[in-house]
């Protein structure tokens, strides 16, 4: 662990006209830390995630990222070329719907290899070997390497999407409802896999989810959002076991007990 955060976010706001997307969000993210952003739908979680991952430009506020050379760079002042380079090397983005993050018409191997080729890898054998390695790490059989993701189940697609994002060894991964739409047993395996990968690779991650169980399992720290504002933040266990804000109390008590 270093003494400096990986990402510094300060007073970030995004307005859609007069409507609030997210307002005045401030936090630091440290290397290897998993931060969960929870809240009901429409609370601004995804807007915040899109702003942080520079897919959206915020209306005001700053976010600076510590590059591999330990220099902080202001995300919204970078050129588009630099941002996109960051997106496909040092960052990953796992979409809720795997079809948004995968190329559905090219094989699984090419999906994993694309980032390698994008950063200049030009050796077919090595790219394929890396793809095989990553498929096995996300528990996809090697003989599925030449199949298109269209032929994959939802859980497999999501695992493939994760492999595709992690192949360049990113330091920060954004996840938007990574387990959304999967049935519980598949969810459990995926969470197990994610937790293993995050620990092994020392990834920092920002996970947006409305599922408090996912947040508890994956994250060390969490932020609760409502109407675009952060109503409570702190260690995950503390927030879930001893919620202070009335909204968080409501949220925690709304979990269905089986």
């Amino acid at each position, binding site marked *: 662990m270093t003494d400096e955060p990986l990402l510094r976010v300060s007073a970030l706001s995004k307005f859609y006209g007069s409507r609030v997307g997210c307002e005045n969000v401030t936090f630091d993210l440290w290397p290897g830390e998993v931060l969960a952003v929870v809240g009901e739908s429409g609370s601004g979680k995804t807007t915040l995630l899109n702003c942080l991952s520079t897919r959206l430009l915020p209306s005001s506020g700053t976010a600076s990222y510590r590059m591999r050379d330990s220099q902080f760079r202001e995300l919204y002042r970078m050129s*588009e*070329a630099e941002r*996109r380079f960051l997106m*496909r090397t040092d960052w990953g983005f796992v979409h809720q719907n795997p079809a948004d993050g995968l*190329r559905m018409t*090219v*094989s699984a*191997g*090419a999906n994993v*290899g*694309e*980032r*390698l*080729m*994008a*950063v200049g890898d*030009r*050796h*077919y*054998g090595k*790219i*394929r070997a890396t793809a095989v390695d990553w498929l096995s790490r996300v528990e996809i059989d090697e003989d599925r*390497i*030449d199949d298109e993701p269209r032929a994959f189940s939802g859980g497999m697609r999501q695992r493939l999407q994760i492999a595709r994002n992690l192949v360049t060894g990113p330091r920060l991964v954004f996840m938007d409802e990574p387990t959304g739409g999967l049935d519980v047993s598949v969810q459990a395996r995926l969470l197990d896999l994610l937790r293993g990968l995050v620990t092994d690779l020392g990834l920092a991650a920002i996970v947006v989810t409305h599922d408090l169980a996912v947040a508890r399992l994956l994250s060390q720290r969490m932020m609760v959002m409502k109407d675009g504002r952060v109503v409570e933040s702190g260690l995950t266990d503390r927030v879930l076991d001893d919620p202070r804000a009335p909204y968080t109390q409501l949220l925690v008590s709304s979990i269905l007990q089986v």
Partner: protein
Amino acid sequence: MTDIATYNFAYLDEQTKRMIRRAILKGIAVPGYQVPFASREMPMPYGWGTGGVQVTASIIGPEDVLKVIDQGADDTTNAVSIRAFFKKVANVAVTTETAKATIIQTRHRIPEHPLSAGQVLVYQVPIPEPLRFLEPRETETRKMHALEEYGLMHVKLYEDIARHGRIATSYAYPVKVEGRYVMDPSPTPKFDNPKMHRSPALQLFGAGREKRIYAVPPFTEVVSLDFEDHPFEVQTFDQPCALCAAENVYLDEVILDDHGGHMFVCSDTDHCEKRCEQGHRGHLAPETPLALERTEPAQ
């Protein structure tokens, strides 16, 4: 000259020609970059070479000698009609001989006879965007060109090797021009790609329906994309041309009968006829040279 009285020289009005020339100049200045232009309606359907015809019409002058080929042949419908069109609207000399032409409009071949400085090769291009089938959004592909993000192009080649064990793309094989832009050389066979590299002739590409013009100036680097362990290679043929016995040329398969009979002949008809005149004989060549036979009246 009465034939052309009703048309401006070379069919297009001067204002349009200036607009197209500006696009061509910009294309030459930025080799491989697709320049948008205001493509006009031409008296032929899209897909029949409206882009190439507009480029030719904009650069042709009364002194020019025009050759038009379609898949290497001078005598196919498209080639004959476009040649007749320019004879009518520009009253220019036409030829089938590669060496004598100053402008060669081509659909999907580069002549076998080496091009020389001062010649212009005009390509008819159906789909100018090499990334089109990988990324359908034009806004995105333009951004990828602008930021030189060409990883996706190799994804296509990767897919080829994964499926077929080798790079199976045999035409419209993507090239990188002058170390910068990735370009679709139009659906020419990849056999012709090496001929584009440092060619002394100016190469212009016109896509009428897609409204794009791009160019490769003379002596420009044109490198075919590949992998280190799967290098670019051109098609090879295991037999020579059946008519002129030429080797190391691009051959077409011609069906001879309904019983599977076929022969492989030069796709470049001018090249083939020249060789026949010089006395080269393939195993299916007629006794008398083809060119002579053609001048005889039909029975």
